[in-house]
């Protein structure tokens, strides 16, 4: 029979397969498993959609919160530029002494501009805004101090530099008290830092959840394909060969979950854009919420793929070894 004569030649050809051909076959298997993994997602659309939704939500929560925190940080950053230092001066400072002091303060490197509010201007302003005008006039003499309102130069608007400038100015003998409206900004920033850290911790926990979700899904998949795994092992499949489709499958879950998370964040930001623009307009600001951006989007997708891969790796490492032909 023909096979008899063929045998030797075929065997020789098999062993003569070049390294390049083997590598090509190896790459082809990777490509096929990549495609097969996607095919498996499509084969059970409802189950896949639910898993992908869970992954998407788990990733969208930290991603969305991080976007909000970084928006808040950038807002507080622009507010810093508007930081004011108010020097409340001691009583009974003459108008000429006041002007002299203002001129002196203007020479400070950190000072961009100085606005002088005399004691009587303070009083007039207070009377106009508070409605206590009559009460104050009963007091006879003016209890309000003169004030120098200082706008720090650009290089002095960071909380630390502004703080130092304020201390320096507060050391002047005519100054009774320094009031810095930067203080609350520093606190806000500190709180945002804590929030940022907290979101990162939650993100880590949710990333772990994604690993577990994918791991469990892949575990079921391994269970469903037990026979295939056993037969492949009997036919001489290496662990890497058997792992491959599951790893791609998990990576697809990760990618799909990442895209879902991306869309959820986008959707949430769209819903918030209107109210935020309204709030900004009340402050006379042009502020707009910024989204994930290219870098954020790529980070989200890459890490979701990595988490999917990791999840299936965990499942595969735990369960594939246990499946041996009997």
């Amino acid at each position, binding site marked *: 029979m023909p096979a008899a004569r063929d045998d030797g030649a075929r065997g020789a050809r098999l062993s003569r397969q070049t390294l390049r051909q083997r590598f*090509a076959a190896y790459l082809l298997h990777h490509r096929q498993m990549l495609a097969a993994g996607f095919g498996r997602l499509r084969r059970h659309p409802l189950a896949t959609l639910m898993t992908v939704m869970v992954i998407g939500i788990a990733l969208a929560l930290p991603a969305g919160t991080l976007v909000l925190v970084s928006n808040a940080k950038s807002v507080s950053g622009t507010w810093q530029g508007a930081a004011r230092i108010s020097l409340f001066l001691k009583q009974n400072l003459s108008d000429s002494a006041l002007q002299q002091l203002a001129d002196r303060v203007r020479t400070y490197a950190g000072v961009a501009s100085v606005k002088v509010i005399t004691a009587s201007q303070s009083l007039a302003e207070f009377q106009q805004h508070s409605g206590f005008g009559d009460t104050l006039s009963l007091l006879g003499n003016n209890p309000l101090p003169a004030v120098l309102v200082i706008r720090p130069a650009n290089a002095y608007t960071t909380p630390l530099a502004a703080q130092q400038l304020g201390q320096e100015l507060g050391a002047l003998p005519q100054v009774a008290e320094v009031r810095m409206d930067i203080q609350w900004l520093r606190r806000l920033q500190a709180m945002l830092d804590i929030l940022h850290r907290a979101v990162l911790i939650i993100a880590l926990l949710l990333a772990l959840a994604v690993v577990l979700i994918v791991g469990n899904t892949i575990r079921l998949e391994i269970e469903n394909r037990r026979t295939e795994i056993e037969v492949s092992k009997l036919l001489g499949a290496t662990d890497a060969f058997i792992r491959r489709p599951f790893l791609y499958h998990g990576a697809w879950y990760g990618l799909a979950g990442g895209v879902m998370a991306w869309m959820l964040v986008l959707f949430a930001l769209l819903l918030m854009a209107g109210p935020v623009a309204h709030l900004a307009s009340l402050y006379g600001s042009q502020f707009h919420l910024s989204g994930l951006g290219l870098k954020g989007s790529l980070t989200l997708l890459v890490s979701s793929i990595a988490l999917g891969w990791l999840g299936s790796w965990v499942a595969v490492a735990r369960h594939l070894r246990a499946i041996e032909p009997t």
Partner: protein
Amino acid sequence: MIQFSEVNKRYAGGNEALAGVSFNIEHGEMVFLTGPSGAGKSTLLKLLALIERPSRGQIVVNGQNLGGIRRGQIPHYRRKVGVIFQDHKLLHDRSVFDNVALPLIIAGVAHQDIPKRVSAALELVGLAHKERALPVMLSTGEQQRVGIARAVISRPPILIADEPTGNLDPDLSFEVMQLFRRLNQVGITVLVASHDHTLIRRLGQRVLSLRAGRVVAPELQGDAHAGRA
């Protein structure tokens, strides 16, 4: 080609499935492994496929001591031993073509070589026209032949089969056995477990007989056969 020396196999449950089994199968031989149910035929074949490990003794296949094969090397060993099962172990969600091609894909054979080798293997078992069929669309005999095509496609020097005709009627059984005979004639060493004595006698090959885990002499086997009949 296949050498057993004082091989013992005791399962975790305490059963001694094989006790002091020694024999030698030459390169290019075809041997039938017989014996009543529970004699240890499947166990012996599982040791050859490295599905089980012996408790004691030494097995040498094609010059390679199986005791020295670590877990990571098992896949490469198995590619050189074609295995056929009574229940075929075909993958039912794949076409006949894909089932038969699987060993080649596992071995990393260049994909442009795969179709013609699958065709050749299916032609060998007389199923060239069934490439696109799913296993469920085939009869039991045809499924068994697909299993044989899959076992021989990577041209292993050794072929082992565990009761390959257990589910087939006598005519189909004879056909399948003749197929093994033809494979043997092209130089493959073949070991077939079977308790179909009529069929074995008809094929007239060497017989290795097991009883309760021990190799028994052919005349004893004849007695056992007579006693049972």
